[in-house]
């Protein structure tokens, strides 16, 4: 054999289409991964009308666990590409998405990023698409809570690192750009005691507090903000995480204004009904729509492009479709996924909480600014 040889992508019109899904089956983001794959399977079923086939060609899924580690994801991606896979999807974590995306570009295969929220994936290169929302869309939704921002004082409370940086930058651009003064309080992601930060926030007396915090310390953080009177003194906005996390907000939950990517009941589309019917448990959650949309995009790409990645890209660019959340559009310029976003309220107590939609933003209302395609 030759060391440079890779398996040929099947040009055979009846050969199965290989789709590689690299996502977190284990590791800290395993539950996001689980929703993603359930959503994907439901979406595939929906888009192929239950056949699992595009034309005569079966869609053959290969699932690989990356455990949230980019190195493992890259290995898996190379392995899949080497075996002739032309379509990669998955990436639960932003770090994974960012490192798999260049691999896809280098090898000219399609990559549809999953729940990873990082803005940097939008416009990363022409081979990279996304099936979920991005931080910017979160922030635009947050802005809708304060009406006219002119002259208002906004504080961002975010963890150190890229996720926090991205959110802070987005708030400065979106809300600061329309007249508000934006300042930030940052804390290490590993912090366990939040009183100093709560005190700093309180001292700043904001009109709106935007919180970008992911991780297991979130409940302690909310409790401290509540105890120190931050939640009752101002409008506090944050993203609504998966269902399992709702009870951890405790009493603080009802004092927060949530922006939401998705929760069960936020929409009542055909796709949502189909997804609900298909997934185990019958209750939709945060990242089911991402998997569902990814499958819809895969089917579209294969239907229009066959084995030709360039054609797949053409077929996806500018494509509008009805996803779980509602109408979605793959923006041709930078492959942002334009999609509706929601405002939500959390009610309930103990372990029993429900989210209700207060308002929904259309895709265009929540659209991120166009970025330049980098590669």
């Amino acid at each position, binding site marked *: 054999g030759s060391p440079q040889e890779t398996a040929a992508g099947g040009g055979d019109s009846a050969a199965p289409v290989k789709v590689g899904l690299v996502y977190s089956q284990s590791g800290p983001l395993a539950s996001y991964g689980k929703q993603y794959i359930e959503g994907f399977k439901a979406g595939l079923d929906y888009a192929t009308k239950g056949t699992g086939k595009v034309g005569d060609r079966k869609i053959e899924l290969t699932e690989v666990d990356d455990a949230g580690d980019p190195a493992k994801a890259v290995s898996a991606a190379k392995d899949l590409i080497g075996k002739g896979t032309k379509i990669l999807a998955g990436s639960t974590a932003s770090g994974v998405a960012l490192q798999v995306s260049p691999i896809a570009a280098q090898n000219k295969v399609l990559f549809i990023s999953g729940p990873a929220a990082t803005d940097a994936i939008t416009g990363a290169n022409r081979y990279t698409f996304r099936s979920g929302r991005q931080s910017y869309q979160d922030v635009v939704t947050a802005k809708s809570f304060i009406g006219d921002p002119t002259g208002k004082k906004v504080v961002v409370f975010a963890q150190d690192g890229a996720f926090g940086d991205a959110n802070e930058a987005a708030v400065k651009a979106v809300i600061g750009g329309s007249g508000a003064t934006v300042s930030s309080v940052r804390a290490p992601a590993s912090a366990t005691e939040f009183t100093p930060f709560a005190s700093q926030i309180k001292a700043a007396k904001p009109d709106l507090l935007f919180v970008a915090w992911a991780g297991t310390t979130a409940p302690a953080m909310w*409790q401290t903000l509540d105890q120190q009177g931050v939640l009752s003194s101002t409008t506090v906005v944050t993203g609504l995480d998966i269902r399992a996390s709702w009870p951890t907000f405790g009493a603080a939950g009802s004092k927060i204004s949530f922006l939401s990517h998705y929760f069960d009941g936020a929409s009542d589309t055909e796709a949502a009904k189909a997804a609900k019917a298909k997934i185990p448990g019958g209750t939709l959650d945060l990242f089911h729509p991402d998997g569902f949309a990814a499958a819809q995009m895969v089917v579209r790409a294969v239907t229009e492009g066959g084995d030709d990645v360039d054609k797949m890209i053409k077929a996806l660019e500018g494509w509008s479709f009805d996803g779980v959340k509602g109408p979605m559009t793959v923006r041709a310029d930078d492959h942002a996924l334009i999609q509706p976003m929601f405002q939500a309220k959390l009610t309930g107590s103990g372990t029993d909480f429900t989210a209700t939609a207060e308002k929904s933003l259309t895709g265009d209302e929540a659209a991120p600014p166009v970025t330049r395609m980098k590669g």
Partner: protein
Amino acid sequence: MSTVILLALTGLGLAALYFLVASGLSLVFGLADVLNFAHGLFLGVGAYATWWASGNLPGAGPDGFGFVLAVAFGVAAGVLVAVLVELVLIRPLYSRTIEQVLVTVGLSLAGVALLQATWGADARPFPRPGWTRQVTGILGANVPNAGLLLIVAAAVVLGALLAFLRWTRYGLVIRAGVENREMVTALGIDVRRAFTLVFAIGGAAAALAGALGGVYFGTVSPGQGGSLLIFAFIVVVIGGMGSVVGSAYAAVAVGLLQQFVNYYGPSGLGDVCVVALLAVVLLLRPQGFAGKVATA
């Protein structure tokens, strides 16, 4: 002014949490000479067992006596696991310190993964009495009751450990046993039992820390123990390995430093300061604050 009080008291709460985690670690490390990376697992076991008991154990619950019962169950579970670990895994490896470290590393990986396999990776809300969510006004500062609970618990644990070391023969046996196990046996003492006891106490302290940590964080998740462990290690080392009192001082220093720097300094500096404190203490006084090994 009230900010300073608030920061000081919450800093002490944090210190108490560090101490609770570190005390067991310090005891096991200082007395049994085992650098126990599985301590985080004991923590997790305590937290999850408390959580489980409060939902499933008859009589246990999130409030009042039920809560005490749940915590007691959690502590018992921590003791059980620690004793099993000592008997099955550590005992055959005494005097092979590096191997012991490896086994505890392996155990921490496997154990936490097992918790995750059983109860999932996501944080679960932790059942706790309503008053622990409230605050108490002290000199104009709203001090969280959970923090005060931690401080009280830490003081009790400190007192109990000191009493154990000072007034029982076990303290003596174990201190001697670390120096020379064989010679303790040659004096007619079953030193293995004493070491199992140290693990049991370490496990109990860890499980209590896990349960009270659950109260403090409001949630329980598989990785919680591990993330606290690194600070606990720092506390143990700064305090002088194996000195329980030293750990208490070190915990207070670390907790307050972190809290105040986080408020007055730029973000992230709190952690850096703690790490710097560790480096400075060790460079100036390699034996740590207390400077004496395996003492009360």
